[in-house]
């Protein structure tokens, strides 16, 4: 029995280090290859020994697909390809291919240069890894090999994020990566056609949340920022360099312009300018509005937002600072946070999800005394706000996507177990499909029953179609033909054609039965009586009286003869071929019963 097997090596009932193995029709595909922000030991990378214990990665995997450039989806890639060893193709979109190596390099610097980790991947490894990347266009059907094909769909979320359809023959799996079903200020909404995959693997970060309208959240955000700077406080917004940052920048930029505010807005340097440049060059991946107006005014050229310098953090007076990284787990955002945390006038706004173990997660869960490195205790007096600007689909959005794609079953990853449980029930109720939520290392096996493709000869098809058009043919009609199987090639042809093709002659089997009737009249009259008798009974059949005196029912021939020895008896010769067996046999038994008394 054919089946689809799915094993999450990461992101099973968890957020972080997304990595899912899919086996479909004998092909093995790895979806994403991410790292976990919450760990800095072995657990930060997926456990590839699951594959390597039985052989080399390159031999086992047909391809690797990366959905977008966030590190929890691509952070383990150089480790995987260069240190564990994989030489096959890695597929991702153009923007992902452009931005991914920069984030990896950034990540490497923090890990090696700042934390001093040994045995980490090097810059050269990132470069070598990126050489294995094959860029794909949206909606392009990429033929990985003769059987395996993949296709990318727009996912929103971040620049270049894509959902992928993996297809072998008539079996398919869709992996969403992270996606967003509502357009935001710089990206469009995810979209997929009704591709009816056997399995939809979807993220479920916000499995239980149904978010209010975006507009409300934006107004809320602006109000909080505005109030804080009005009373002279500083606002820290930890973000990742690409994605939410651009959306919030556009939001603040337009607000500042409208309100004519003079309070400085800074963006921590480094990636920023480069990041905005990517947005300019990949403008075709942004939303409709930005694409339409980019010739007149490029939304990613900011007037009010300036580059941040470390020294600015100690400047007196209000300011707004966007700083990386977004979960306050390291780098500039954490430094600024430490400086400002003690003042209750200040505010930190967390615009996105924070992984367990990060400072961001701790303060969001209400912790106000943080233990920092060197046993220092940091008391957090500044206001802490959480605003869900993460571009993930909420429960409504996930349901919407399931409705769009119409899968046979759904599998949840990239979320917390408890929340998944709730969504799983909801999906099973609403769509009446099976829903799975495997933990890491747990395998889900889905039996499939792919139909078998073959060819039908046009002659046979046309014949069938023509008959199918008749009004009486309401009930299902049976099609008869011969299936020729040659080197796993299937062709359905009419039986006549099959014989001809194989050079076989048809063998005609014919029966002729003598039916004795008591009838004194002449043969012609007997035939006439037979004709009218059959005509009255066989209303659905074509009964004809031929000029030579014989009667036909469809292709069955009936002739009347007078045996010389007994003039009172007539012999009916009923002749039919094997193909008319039923009707022929029926006719003989019918005629055996005799003819109704003729009117005198």
């Amino acid at each position, binding site marked *: 029995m054919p089946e689809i097997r799915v094993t999450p090596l990461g992101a099973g009932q968890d957020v972080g280090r997304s990595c899912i193995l899919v086996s479909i029709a004998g092909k093995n595909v790895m979806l994403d290859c991410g790292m976990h922000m919450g760990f800095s030991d072995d657990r930060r990378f997926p456990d590839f020994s699951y594959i390597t214990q039985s052989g080399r990665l390159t031999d086992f995997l047909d391809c690797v697909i990366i959905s977008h450039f966030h590190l929890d989806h691509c952070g383990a890639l150089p480790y995987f390809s260069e240190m564990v060893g994989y030489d096959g193709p890695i597929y991702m979109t153009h923007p992902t*291919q*452009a931005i991914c190596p920069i984030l990896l390099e950034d990540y490497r610097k923090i890990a090696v240069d700042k934390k001093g980790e040994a045995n980490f991947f090097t810059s050269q490894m990132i470069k070598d890894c990126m050489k294995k990347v094959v860029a794909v*266009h*949206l909606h*392009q*059907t990429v033929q990985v090999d003769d059987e395996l094909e993949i296709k990318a769909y727009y996912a929103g979320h971040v620049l270049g994020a894509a959902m992928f359809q993996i297809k072998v023959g*008539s079996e398919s799996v869709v992996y969403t990566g992270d996606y967003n079903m509502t357009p935001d200020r710089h990206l469009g909404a995810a979209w997929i056609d009704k591709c009816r995959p056997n399995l939809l693997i979807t993220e479920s970060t916000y499995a239980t949340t149904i978010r209010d309208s975006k507009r409300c959240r934006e107004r809320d955000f602006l109000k909080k920022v505005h109030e804080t700077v009005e009373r002279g406080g500083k606002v820290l917004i930890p973000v990742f360099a690409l994605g939410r940052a651009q959306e919030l920048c556009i939001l603040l930029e337009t607000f500042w312009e409208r309100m004519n505010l003079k309070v400085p807005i800074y963006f921590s340097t480094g990636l920023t300018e480069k990041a905005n440049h990517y947005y300019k*060059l*990949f403008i*075709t991946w942004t939303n409709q509005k930005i694409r339409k107006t*980019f010739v007149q005014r490029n939304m990613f050229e900011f007037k009010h937002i300036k580059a941040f310098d470390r020294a600015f953090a100690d400047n007196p007076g209000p300011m707004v600072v966007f700083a990386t990284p977004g979960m306050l787990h390291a780098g500039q955002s954490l430094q600024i946070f430490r400086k400002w945390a003690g003042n209750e006038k200040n505010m930190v706004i967390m615009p996105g999800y924070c992984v367990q173990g990060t400072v961001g997660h701790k303060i969001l869960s209400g912790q106000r005394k943080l233990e920092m490195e060197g046993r220092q205790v940091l008391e957090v007096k500044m206001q802490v706000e959480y605003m869900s600007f993460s571009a993930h689909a909420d429960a409504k959005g996930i349901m919407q996507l399931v409705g769009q794609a119409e899968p046979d079953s759904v599998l949840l990853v990239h979320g917390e177990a408890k929340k998944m449980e709730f969504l799983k029930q909801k999906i099973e109720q609403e769509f009446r499909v099976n829903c799975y939520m495997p933990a890491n290392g747990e395998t889900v096996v889905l039996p499939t029953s792919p*139909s*078998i*493709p073959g*060819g*039908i*000869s*046009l002659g046979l*098809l046309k014949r069938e*179609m023509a008959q199918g058009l008749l009004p009486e043919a309401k009930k*299902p009609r*049976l*099609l*008869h033909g*011969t*299936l*020729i*199987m*040659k*080197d796993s090639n299937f*062709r*359905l042809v009419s*039986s*006549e054609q*099959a*014989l001809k093709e*194989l050079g*076989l*002659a*048809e*063998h*005609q*089997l*014919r*029966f*002729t039965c*003598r039916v*004795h009737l008591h009838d004194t009249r002449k043969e012609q009259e007997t035939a006439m009586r037979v004709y009218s008798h059959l005509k009255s*009974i*066989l209303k659905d*059949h074509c009964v004809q009286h031929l000029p030579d005196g014989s009667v036909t029912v*469809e292709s069955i021939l009936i002739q009347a003869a007078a045996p010389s020895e007994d003039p009172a008896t007539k012999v009916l010769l009923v002749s039919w071929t*094997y*193909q*008319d*067996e*039923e*009707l022929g*046999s029926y006719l003989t038994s019918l005629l*055996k019963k005799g003819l109704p008394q003729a009117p005198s």
Partner: protein
Amino acid sequence: DLSTVDVILISNYHCMMALPYITEHTGFSGTVYATEPTVQIGRLLMEELVNFIERVPKAQSASLWKNKDIQRLLPSPLKDAVEVSTWRRCYTMQEVNSALSKIQLVGYSQKIELFGAVQVTPLSSGYALGSSNWIIQSHYEKVSYVSGSSLLTTHPQPMDQASLKNSDVLVLTGLTQIPTANPDGMVGEFCSNLALTVRNGGNVLVPCYPSGVIYDLLECLYQYIDSAGLSSVPLYFISPVANSSLEFSQIFAEWLCHNKQSKVYLPEPPFPHAELIQTNKLKHYPSIHGDFSNDFRQPCVVFTGHPSLRFGDVVHFMELWGKSSLNTVIFTEPDFSYLEALAPYQPLAMKCIYCPIDTRLNFIQVSKLLKEVQPLHVVCPEQYTQPPPAQSHRTDLVIDCQPPATSYRRAEVLTLPFKRRYERIEIMPELADSLVPMEIKPGISLATVSAVLHTKDNKHVLQPPPRPAQPTSGKKRKRVSDDVPDCKVLKPLLSGSIPVEQFVQTLEKHGFSDIKVEDTAKGHIVLLQEAETLIQIEEDSTHIICDNDEMLRVRLRDLVLKFLQKF
């Protein structure tokens, strides 16, 4: 009748200039497919055209000349123009927008299902940004439409040749207009003539379209002007869409050649004209009015349209510079005869240089391509099967392939030379399980199939036949006609032949005695005297003649069938 057209596939932005005429006024209600760069740049070309035409409003329009009798009297070449009565006014921007809004955007190698019957796929053709060749295929037939393709390395993504393989028919059109000119040589000539003129204090006019070759020319000049010591000479690009064209060219990285693509990863703009603009060497203006008149410095190089020299800003420059032999006009666009374009401006003192740059396939490249791709049949316009009229001795300027290409003319309907024999069908696994294959020859098996054919959206699925309904226990007395057998249960065909001796042995084994065998011309007759039955056996037929004894007949039938194969 365009309302019967289901789908329009657009190859490149030059091939869509008439689209509003079709989508807006003909009852066409199908779908148009094109790539995103094709649509965006096509919009710019149309916008420029509309803008140029609307600048010269005509209070009255004459149409009497369209009358055939009057046209006949006009001087040449007007009297020779064909189908004048179908000529239309230029469309408006409103019609352009409405037409373009009907286009479905597609990407290279995207498989698009049409009505479940065929699949179309655009492939990179290497000629322009977003230019495509199309594959139209069903499961068993493949037609490739190759239009406006280029094997040269310019800015667009290289041509995808591999996907054209195994075509039943390849429709080939949009070859180079200037088969004798080498584009690379022409670019060199362009640069040297430009330098010569500017050094002598003259101006250079380049009539051109606002997108396409101009990107390559600017890139060449970017490399050339410094080495030629011309970096102080201003380059002007004047078109209502100049700015948009330059901006758009930078955002289609995914549609560019590998070299340019990798620049975006740095991130840097893919085309160097961004730098020319930044360093003020290249300036662009929507028209000659406004800012341009303030900035205008001579000597200079001006790129502007329209290349036909009949309208657009180019007309002003022709009149401004035409009288001085210091100036030069350089024709690069191959679409118009430069002699005809210049005719109304004669006598002309300015120098005219003709270096047409047409990167599309020439005949040598075509032969190479056809050898590579090996289509079963080639179909092409008639012009390509004979040498151009001006160079009738150049017999090398034709398409050379085996079998010879089928040619077509305008408005001719051509039947493509292949026969459709099969269509795709899906066999449900339940049905497949129930089949009993039988090996007839080594490697070939047969199975008879009785199934229900379901057809939806041109997709055919074979499903297992419904189970025969359980006979309802006879409450109602059956009428005679109820017993009439349903002839829909078809019997299989038979094949093989019956070995007489074995057959007779079998008969004996089954209790028949008194069997006599007679030889006939074609076979044998087996007589069962007791049962008054006669069986004629020939090579490919068997005839059982018996009394009306159903039991006996069925027994004999089954014995005969044992020797035959069923289909």
